[in-house]
Structures are given as C-alpha cells and as structure tokens.
C-alpha cells in the first residue's frame, strides 16, 4: 500500500514529466513558456518533499518570478518570427529522439548498479531553522564557501551589464544609418 508521501510524489512526478514533454513538443511558443512554468513549479514541490524548503522558495522566486517572466516577454517580442504554423522540429529530430533515449537508458543502467540507491532517507537530526542557519553561515565563512558566493555575485553583475549592452538598441540605429 502506498503511503501518502509516495502518492504525492508520483502525482507530482507525473505532472512534471508531462509538462516537460509538452515544453519540447508544443507548437505555440506561448504554450511552451506556460508548460515550462508548470515544470518549474513541480520541481519546487520536489524540493519541499526533500526537506529543502528554502531552496523551493528560492526556485519559485528566481525561476518563475524572474526567468519565466523574462522568457514570456521575449516570446511576445519575437512572436512574428515563427508563428505556430511553421514546423517546430528540425530535420534531424529522429536523431535527437535516439540520443535522448540512449542517454536516459544509460543513466538509469549506470545508477542501477550503484549499491546505495535503495537507501531510505536518513532522519534529519536538526530542524529546518538550523539547516538554513547552517547554509547561511557556510556561505559567509572564510574557511568554507565564501568564494563561490562572491564569484556568483560577480557573475550576476557581469551578466546584468552584459545583457544591457548586448540588447542596447543604439548601435543598431547607427548601423542602419550607415547602410542607408
């Protein structure tokens, strides 16, 4: 008999995988973006099931509230390029299917040989507040993970500056004047 947690896991896994398949096969770009949002929400629910509540909320705040909205805006800006009547699959899509299936099979076979996969979850010794406090302390501790933290902030700053410069419309109007 399946416990409640297992039933919830199976339902959420089915929804997430179905949404992911619709992301890669949908004809309309708007629908693709919406199915992506459902997949991201499903992953957030997985994080909650894995006792990583902080990461679940960060997932919703970063992916759904920022990245998904950016993607939807760009979908609306470029919608005239490929309407839903054009074909969405490239000519060699059958090779992609074979590659994906081989990859999935290979991964599952490889993991099935690892002995610790039937393991049950060890009980957590500390509560959720201590987990988050430990994470925060580890991110600013000089002996531990402050360098990846600072590198990630510099990366975000570089990405922000870079995307503004790349998407700046000023240069293109100059080039249009040069061409005409």
């Amino acid at each position, binding site marked *: 008999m399946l416990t409640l947690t297992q039933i919830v*896991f199976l339902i959420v896994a089915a929804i997430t995988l179905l949404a992911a398949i619709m992301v*890669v096969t949908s004809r309309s770009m708007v629908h693709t973006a919406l199915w992506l949002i459902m997949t991201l929400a499903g992953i957030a629910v997985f994080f909650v099931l894995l006792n990583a509540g902080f990461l679940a909320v960060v997932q919703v705040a970063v992916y759904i509230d920022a990245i998904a909205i*950016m993607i939807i805006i*760009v979908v609306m800006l470029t919608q005239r390029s490929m309407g839903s009547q054009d074909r969405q699959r490239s000519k060699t899509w059958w090779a992609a299917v074979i590659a994906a299936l081989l990859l999935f099979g290979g991964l599952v076979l490889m993991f099935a040989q690892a002995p610790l996969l039937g393991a049950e979850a060890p009980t957590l010794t500390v509560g959720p507040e201590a987990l988050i406090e430990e994470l925060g302390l580890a991110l600013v501790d000089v002996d531990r*993970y402050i360098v990846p933290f600072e590198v990630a902030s510099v990366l975000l700053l570089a990405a922000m500056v870079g995307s503004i410069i790349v998407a700046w419309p000023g240069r293109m109007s100059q080039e249009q004047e040069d061409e005409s």
Partner: protein
Amino acid sequence: MIPLSWYIIVGAALFSIGIYGALARRNALAILMAIELILNAVNLNLVAFWRYLTPNIVAGKVFVLVVFAVAASEVAVGLALIISIYRRRHTIAVEEIDMMKW
C-alpha cells in the same frame, strides 16, 4: 518511504527530455527553455543526493545556489542575444542564423 532511485529516475528523465528539446527544436527560445529543463534536472539530482547521502554537510545546497545564479545569468545574456539577433536578422530560427556575416 521514497527510495533515492525514484528521484534519480525523474531527474534523468527530465535531463533526457531537455537534451531532446535542445537538439530538436528550431526556435532559439525553445532551445533556451530546454536548457532550463536540463539545469533543473541537475538541481533536483543535487538536492536528492544531499538529502539522502550527506544531510549534515551543506555543500550540496551551496552548489544548488550557485547553479541558480549561473542559470539566471545565462538566461539573461541569452535573451539579450536573441533580441539582438532578432533585430538584425528578423528571424530566430537557428537554421537561418548560420552565417557570421554576409
């Protein structure tokens, strides 16, 4: 309750679906969305392994935060590039963006 293998299978399935999407779609935005699926599958794997094998060591979650930051910056720069390409070539089908300069 839930064995680790279930999480690994879901992560591997998401990863494979993302690989199919990145290889088989013509629209540059759709490829970007498939790459987001891949990054999410990696995150799921990381958190599952953290929870089941080393719940006392916080390195797994730090790695997930760094992957969040990398994914966000990659999407930002990728979308800026797509907008810029759309302005110049008026198309975002990757088959038609194959010449550097004409």
